[in-house]
Structure formats: C-alpha cells, structure tokens
C-alpha cells in the first residue's frame, strides 16, 4: 500500500491575472478617438470600460456664446457624417419656439437632403461594419456610392460634409436646376449597389457567422438604456420618430419601419442592427422618390427667414430621427439673441453606454464587431 502524500498548493497563487488591454485612442477600429479599457480572460472579454472625451470641444459652451444662426455650423460638426440630419432638429426647434412656418418647398428639400444623408450615413455604417469583420471590398463599393451623394451636396450647398444649409426659417440657397434628375439617378445607383452588397456581404456565410448571435441586445435592456434608432429597431421595436411623432412633412410619405426579426440568429444581434440600416436605405429611397414627385417647382426658400433670430423666453426639447438614433436639442431661450443653454442629446452617446452590457462574455474579435454595429461617431459623443 502506497503512502498518500499531501502536497500543499496555494491555489490562490495559481489563479492567473486577467489581461487589461487598452483599445484605442489610436486603433484601426474604434471609429475615431475612443478608448476602450478591455479586461480579457484569454480571448474572452470580461469587462469593457469606455473612456470618451478625446474629441471634446465643449459645443454647449460655444453655443452659449454664439447667436442662434451661428450655432448651426457647430451642430454640423457633431455627427460629421450626417450633418443635414443634425441641422434639422436644431433649426426646427428654434422655428417651433419662434412660431415660424416654413414654405412647402423648404420642407421638401429638407426631407430629401436629410434622407440622402441618411443613406450616406448608413453606407458608411455598413461599410465600416464590414471592414470590422474583415471584408474590405464592400467598403469601397459603398464609399464609391456615397461619393455620388456627396457630389449632389457639393453642388447644392458647396460643402461635402459640413453644410450650414438649413437655416432658421429656410435654406441657405435654392437647389440647382437639375437637382431632381441627379437625385433620382442616385436612388437608382444606391439600389443597384445594394443588390451587390446583399450578395457580397449581408448574406455571406462568414459574415453571418461573425455577426449573428453576437452582442445580443434584448428589447427591454435597449429601452432602459435609452437606445434609439437602428439599435432599438434591431431589437425588434418598431419605433421611428418619423412615424411615432411625424415632424416636418414625414406624415405625407408612405414608408415602412424595418425591424430586426432574428432572421439568422437571435433578435437584437449585430446582424439585425446591420440589416435594419441596410433596409432603411431602401425606405429612404422610397421617401426620396415620393418627395421628388410632390415637390413644388417654384417657391422662395428664404421667404420665412426672420431678420433677427430672437426667440421669446421659453424652452423646448425637439428631437428628430437621426440615422444613428434620436437626436434631440434642448434649447433654453432667455429672450436674447444668444441661446441661454443648448444641450444636444447625441444618439451615439447614449447608444455607446450600452456597450459594456452587451459585450461581456464574447470574444475580443466580437467586441470589435459589436462596437461596429453600434455605429458611433465620436464627434457626436464628445461634442
């Protein structure tokens, strides 16, 4: 009979440390200057702490020192890839406070521009999402199409990214004569490329494997975290401000709200968020087509612009459906020509805060995909 030997092992010494990895501020897939402090157990993410503020310009403080019209260029620079959509809630908030009714033509041009910019934004979102998953080619196809949209913006407004085009009560200038044909050509082109993208990326087996069942965001968590836009709709909630409380003239158009249905995985996974963006592009195309058809040819786009933008004393919170979610502006006016307080409720800011919740327990490679599926712009998060 052998003698039993007891060996003293201090098991607490065996436990290995978790690795802390700083992803960013300079990293290929943090979409800007975001720093994620990631705690890794092997390759498994156990915790994520986002550190933001690297692009902080104190927009809100600047806005308090500018008059209402001068704030618009700063609003452009919040979400710099969908500036038209940023300007819309700001100017509409001021208009509502002042009780200005803008001409029909202005409304139509605003809607067309906003929807074009929504398409451009979703193109970037899907392209960079594919890039995060390692697909490089769809990225360039989508960027090529986005370029055509930017050409229209350039012709109409003079700017490619930052427009200062929507003014309180009107537009900076009227659109150019061949605007309608150009826009309809874009719509055709977008649809054509989207067919390619659908085959090349969206229904690619590897892409589905990478994104389905990853980063599942249940509907109740999404609501509680204040997620909006494709994040919320990806979780299966058909909430779109354009339908829920139609602003501008969105009640005149016939379009659907795409939601995540869990076609290839669970409802609310990365693939669902992506497909919502993808299908929204088609809906935007439909809105643009209807708007082009109904748009009046004549009309002065500057007739309602007030001589001096000086809203009465009061406050307003106005929100619009930005491509990334609900963009709201909370404006307090004290009756002077400078706003007393402007707060921008940035959709990316709120959407990003859910990242730690949905990325725990997934692999490190998944974290990048999840981050890509949120579709953030740091200019908006840091303001």
């Amino acid at each position, binding site marked *: 009979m052998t003698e039993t030997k007891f060996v003293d092992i201090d098991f607490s010494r065996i436990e290995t440390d978790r*690795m802390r*990895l700083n992803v960013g501020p300079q*990293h*290929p*897939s943090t979409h800007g200057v975001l720093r994620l402090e990631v705690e890794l157990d092997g*390759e498994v993410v156990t915790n994520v702490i986002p550190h933001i503020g690297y692009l902080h310009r104190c927009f809100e403080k600047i806005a308090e020192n500018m008059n209402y019209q001068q704030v618009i260029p700063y609003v452009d620079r919040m979400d710099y890839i969908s500036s038209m959509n940023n300007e819309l809630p700001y100017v509409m908030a001021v208009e509502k406070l002042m009780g200005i009714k803008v001409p029909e033509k202005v409304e139509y041009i605003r809607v067309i521009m906003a929807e074009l910019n929504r398409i451009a934004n979703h193109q970037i979102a899907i392209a960079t999402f*594919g*890039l*995060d*998953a*390692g*697909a*490089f*080619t769809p990225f*360039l*196809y989508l960027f*090529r199409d986005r370029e055509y949209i930017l050409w229209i913006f350039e012709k109409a407004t003079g700017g490619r990214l930052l427009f200062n085009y929507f003014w309180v009560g009107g537009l900076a200038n009227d659109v150019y004569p061949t605007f309608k044909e150009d826009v309809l050509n874009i719509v055709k082109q977008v649809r054509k490329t989207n067919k390619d993208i659908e085959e*090349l*990326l969206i229904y*690619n087996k*590897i*892409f589905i*494997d*990478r994104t389905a069942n990853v980063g599942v965001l249940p509907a109740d968590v999404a609501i509680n975290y204040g997620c909006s836009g494709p994040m919320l709709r990806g979780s299966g909630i058909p909430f779109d401000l354009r339908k829920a409380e139609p602003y501008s003239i969105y009640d005149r158009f016939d379009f659907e709200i795409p939601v995540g249905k869990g076609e290839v995985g669970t409802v609310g996974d990365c693939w669902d968020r992506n497909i919502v963006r993808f299908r929204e592009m088609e809906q935007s195309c439909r809105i643009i087509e209807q708007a082009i058809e109904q748009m009046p040819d004549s009309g002065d786009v500057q007739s309602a612009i007030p001589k001096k933008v000086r809203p009465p004393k009061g406050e307003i919170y106005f929100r619009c459906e930005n491509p990334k979610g609900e963009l709201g502006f909370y404006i307090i006016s004290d009756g002077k020509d400078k706003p007393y307080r402007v707060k921008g409720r940035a959709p990316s800011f709120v959407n990003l805060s859910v990242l730690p919740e949905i990325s725990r327990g997934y*692999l*490190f*490679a*998944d*974290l*990048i995909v999840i981050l890509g599926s949120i579709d953030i712009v740091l200019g908006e998060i840091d303001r």
Partner: protein
Amino acid sequence: METFNVFERLLGENILSAAISVLLPLVFLIIYALIAILGELKISAWIQERLGPMRTGPYGILQPLAEVIKLIQKEDIVPAGANKLLFNLAPYVIFAGSFAGFAVIPFTAAFVPAEINIGLFYIFAIGAFAVIGIVMGGWASNNKYSLLGAMRSASQMISYEIPGALVILSAAVLANSLDMQKITLLQAGGFWNWFLFGGPGSWSKIWIVPFTILLSIIYLIASLAETNRTPFDIPEGESELVAGYHTEYSGMKFAMFFFAEYSNMFIVAAILTVVFLGGWTSPFGDFMSGFWWGVFWFIFKAMFIVFVQIWLRWTLPRVRVDQLMYLGWKVLLPFALVCFMMISLYRIIY
C-alpha cells in the same frame, strides 16, 4: 522524362553548382515577391473598381520597388522592454523557414535545388518552422496585441497542419512516394493524369476522383490558414489586433515578415501544384512540354494558386478564432480522414 540538376551536369558536382542552386531560388523569390506584391495591389484594385498605384512608373509597375526602398530607409525601432535578441532574430527565423522550403521544389525536370527522396515530408516539416518565428516575434515585442496574435497564430498553424498533413499523406499513398520529382513524373501525360483527377491509371480511378478533388480543396483551405491569409488572417487581424505579431516591427524587419508571407504563399502553391496539378508537366501530354515549358507550366500553375489566394483575400470577411478552430478540427479533419481512408482502400484493392 529524366530528372537531373542542370547545373551539376554543366559544372560538375562542386561548390559552384551548389551555390548557383541555392542562389537561383533566392533570386527567383525576390523577383516573385515583387511581382506578387504588385499583383496584390493591382488585383485588389481591379476587384474593388479602383486603379491601384498609378504614379510610380508606367501603370505603377514600379510600386513594389518603391515600397522596398521605403522599407529599407525606415528607422529600425526596437520597443523598450522588448527582448532584443529574440525580437531581432524572429523575422529571420520566419524567412529562413520559408526559404528553406524552396530547396526541394521541382521547378522543372532538370532543376531541383536539392533532390532528396522525402521532399514532401521535408517541405512540410520546414513549413512548420514559421510558427516558431511568429511566437518569438510576438512574445519578444512586449506588446499585448503581438502576444495575442502570436498565440492565435500558434494554435491556428498547428491545427491546420493536421488536415494538411493528411492530404499530403493521401497523395503519398496514391503516388507511393514522397519524392516531389517522382510525384510530378507520375502525373505526366496530360491533365487527366493529375492527382486532382485521381492520378494515372485505368478507369477504375473514377472512384476516387471526388475524394482527390475534395482533398485539394481541403489543402487549399488549410494552406490559407497556414499562411495567415484572409479569411484566416486572425493572427494579424487588422481590425482587432492592429497588425498582430508584427505590430512593433518596422523597416527591414517588417519587410522580412512581408517577404516571408509571400514566400510562404508560393510554397503552399508549389505543394498544391506538385501534388495535385502535375507540377511542371504539361496539361496536354507531350504538347508544349520541354525544359522551358516545364518552368513555364510550374510557375504558371503556382501563380494561379497565388492569384486564387489574393482573390479570396479581397472577397471574404475574416472568420473568428473559435470558428477557425471549428473548421479545422470538426470539418476539415474528418473529411480529410475519410478521403485518406478511401484512397488507402483504393490502393489496397487496385
């Protein structure tokens, strides 16, 4: 067709012929790497509807040269806290591993740098050398991304060597030899004699044709994983690991990694060519065969495989690390085993 080393015949079996036999593949490798880099740039541009580099030389054909000159000029950085010896050694280990593989590649009937009768075994064994260099470089860089990349790379290469080895084993069973020249010679006489289509023999080989085709696909996939090419480039997965195991390398050391990658691409393409596509033999029997035609066919076939690798890289997204393991162990390995068994059975029966 008789096989021999043309330099030994011309100059005798002396140091000079040996030196030429070593230097010729190196010169070939450098020229090939430049062409492959240009090919990668231009093919990716063509796939993505771009022009690619257009400024350096006519249609940008001097771009790889410009890149090499740029890399030579760059400052050589060794990160603080890195293990200097291993850090400096790693790129050369990787390159040596891949270059050593060229020793047994039969470029044509009359030229194999070193003719040994276990060439296939040797090339496979030496190919596994690269993982040592990658782990060395990844660990010595003192960078977490590099370490993660090196770890991924080690697990990935070892996993994919097993299905790859089974494919080679099946080919060896079919050819009854590990000598690359012998395997090539067996497939002479037209493309229907290639091992891709069951190898030479009577009509009874029709039974194993599906398995040999499957084996060649398995080897293509496994070779992509072994050379860390998309969709299996997770050790250097740009979007998550920045550049993986070579994050900290710059200048010529980075160029060595780059060089080794392209060299590895050619080696796996050469193995696939020799084992399944008849090596330097003409696909049309005696038509278009001969010394120079042999060189042409070999390089043409190998470059076609390299083209396929580039093509896949610019088409597919990247798989995840666990999916890669799943594919290696649960899909490729069982299929390779079944094919191996069927081919062995065929050899026993016929």
